[in-house]
């Protein structure tokens, strides 16, 4: 049965633009956004919006050629960021943004590839991929928004949900230990590891610039409020209360002490740049060893 809709022409460019362009350009950062995509889907007070703004400002500051900058995201609230940027962006399957980004980068090494995703997408279903990408030191940047739950699907528990915290799938309190993301990324082999809260928006912007300019696998964890999901179920107050909490309890440090950098429920938050080292990237090693040796050996 053929629906008459399939032959209908898509909205003409003019009509679409008329609708989308209402208000487009009102904000100086609008040129970095695709027309018609604001307002975005994030809740009032959601920290992803702040991290996203920090990323846009970082793009402005880093001066990376925008035609060659690609953002890949996974599934979740953070994953929606890709759809709003005026870059080549790919919104892929749950947990698989990093291998997708790996494929992109290896097929076109001159691209600058950034993965923008959340704690569940990157460390639960995507856990295997992030540790291998870090191990290989693939030259991509990963920005992980950690809001301690699975926001998009209604606030379920995830790999960073602290012990005792309540979520829709941990109604009696979480009985699992969470990951320490900066510790994990470092152990896996990342060359740049930093964590900031969304309140530290300036530092976050700097960190993203550094991470993007870094050769190798760079990881930035962004501690973010989820007022609708996580905060509401754990009586953590309003969005502003959470930001005040970050202001009072975040302490900058550059020492990666696993205990200090852990994020227990309502505990102190260690922020800062923890790792910044030089290591040959995957392509460096592939070219220096594999390609160089392959040239000498003919296969018949």
């Amino acid at each position, binding site marked *: 049965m053929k629906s008459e809709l399939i032959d209908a022409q*898509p909205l003409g460019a003019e009509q679409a633009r008329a609708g989308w362009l209402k208000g487009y350009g009102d904000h100086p950062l609008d040129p970095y956004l695709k027309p018609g995509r604001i307002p975005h889907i994030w809740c009032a007070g959601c920290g992803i919006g702040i991290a996203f703004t920090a990323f846009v400002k970082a793009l402005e500051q880093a001066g990376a050629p925008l035609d060659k900058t690609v953002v890949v995201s996974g599934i979740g609230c953070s994953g929606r960021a890709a759809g709003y940027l005026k870059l080549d962006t*790919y919104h892929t399957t749950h947990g698989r943004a990093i291998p997708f980004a790996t494929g992109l980068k290896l097929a076109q090494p001159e691209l600058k590839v950034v993965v923008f995703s959340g704690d569940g997408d990157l460390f639960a279903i995507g856990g295997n991929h992030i540790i291998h990408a870090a191990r290989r030191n693939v030259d991509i940047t990963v920005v992980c928004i950690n809001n301690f739950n699975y926001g998009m699907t209604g606030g379920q528990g995830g790999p960073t949900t602290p012990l005792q915290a309540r979520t829709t799938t941990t109604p009696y309190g979480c009985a699992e230990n969470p990951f320490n993301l900066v510790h994990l990324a470092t152990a896996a082999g990342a060359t740049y590891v930093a964590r900031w809260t969304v309140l530290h928006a300036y530092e976050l912007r700097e960190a993203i610039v550094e991470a993007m300019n870094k050769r190798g696998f760079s990881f930035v964890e962004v501690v973010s409020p989820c007022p609708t999901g996580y905060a509401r179920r754990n009586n953590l107050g309003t969005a502003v209360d959470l930001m005040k909490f970050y202001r009072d309890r975040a302490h900058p440090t550059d020492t990666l002490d696993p205990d200090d950098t852990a994020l227990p429920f309502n505990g102190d938050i260690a922020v800062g740049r923890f790792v910044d080292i030089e290591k040959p990237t995957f392509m460096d090693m592939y070219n220096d060893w594999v390609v160089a040796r392959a040239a000498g050996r003919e296969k018949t």
Partner: protein
Amino acid sequence: MKPPTSSGTPNPDGGGLGVRDRQALTGTHFMTGDEASAEGALAAGCRFFAGYPITPATEVAERMAARLPQVGGVYIQMEDEIGSMAALVGASCAGARAMTSTSGPGFSLMMENIGLAAMLEAPCVIVNIMRGGPSTGLPTLTGQQDVMQARWGSHGDYEIIALSPSSPQEAFDLTVEAFNLADRYRVPVMILGDETVGHMSEKVVIPEADKIEIAPRRRPEAPAEDFMPFYPGDDDVPPMVHAGDGYRIHATGLTHDEYGYPVIDADAQERLVQRLVRKIRDHADEIVRTEETRVDDAEVVIVSFGCSARTATEVVEIARANGLKAGLLRLITLWPFPETRIRELARSGRVKTFVVAEINAGQMVYEVERCAEGRAGVALAGLMGGRIMEPPELYEIVRKQT
């Protein structure tokens, strides 16, 4: 050292490194189906391979690992098949001709991202050297049990193309064709080989590089302003934009409109999914390839593919020698299913029975039954896997149909 650059299309002058010469190993070889498939990929301009070792397809990966760096490509062994398929879709979106190889268990893992490839319309080639299943099954022995899965394995509605080689030579030829089909229709294309063909060694003739037809994907001609990356041409296939082209596109696995923006409603779903399905279904007659042996006057037609078709070839001779009018319809394209020819044969009234010879508990037999429309009998000659069909046993079944 300069990093390898990849644009998906072979460098016409070889970059001065003789790359193009080494891309196609012109000459006569004695190689296995796995190796031939790898060489076919290279000859077609494949520059990216992401895979995971799995018997009996490992040799494809091993050959690619050795040869890809020689032709300026990249081989990466991913942590699992899920990552492999995701990397494939990514590499395809960046412009590379990309391939992976796997078998049953890995094929199952790849399914979600095969759906992503179908949704993003990212051309890629997946080689499945089938083995006995289900689950871990018979890792080292043959089977043809993934043929339905190739068509329906991922959730939702989409269409793929699947080709089945019956010899190492065909493994080479069909892999080249697979890349061209993938680029033409922007779909994942599968090479459904079986362990028998994958591991058998036979003569493979690789022609000169300029005799190998390479038809790269259609690229956009319109400028970037207001460009709609998913607006199709007359054949329902949009020209492909790569990352880094400057078009600033958004591609998502969510249902989307022609701009690529996610649109969560029934109208967008209708338009998008109908087109994804139509672009193969409406061109089935161009895509489908079969090979017929003595079908013109046959009363019993054996329908088979892969290594089973080799058994069937001999059975046709045995049957004819015993006065039975048998013929063989060898399916080279498994999907889209060669409906037209089967319907035609069933309607002719001449064919009494189709005998479907496959190494599984009955998969393609249902397609044949559907297309026979009750006008001819359909019988299954099935084996559960682990060995190829022997001519005497297949002949027995054929003989019983008369």
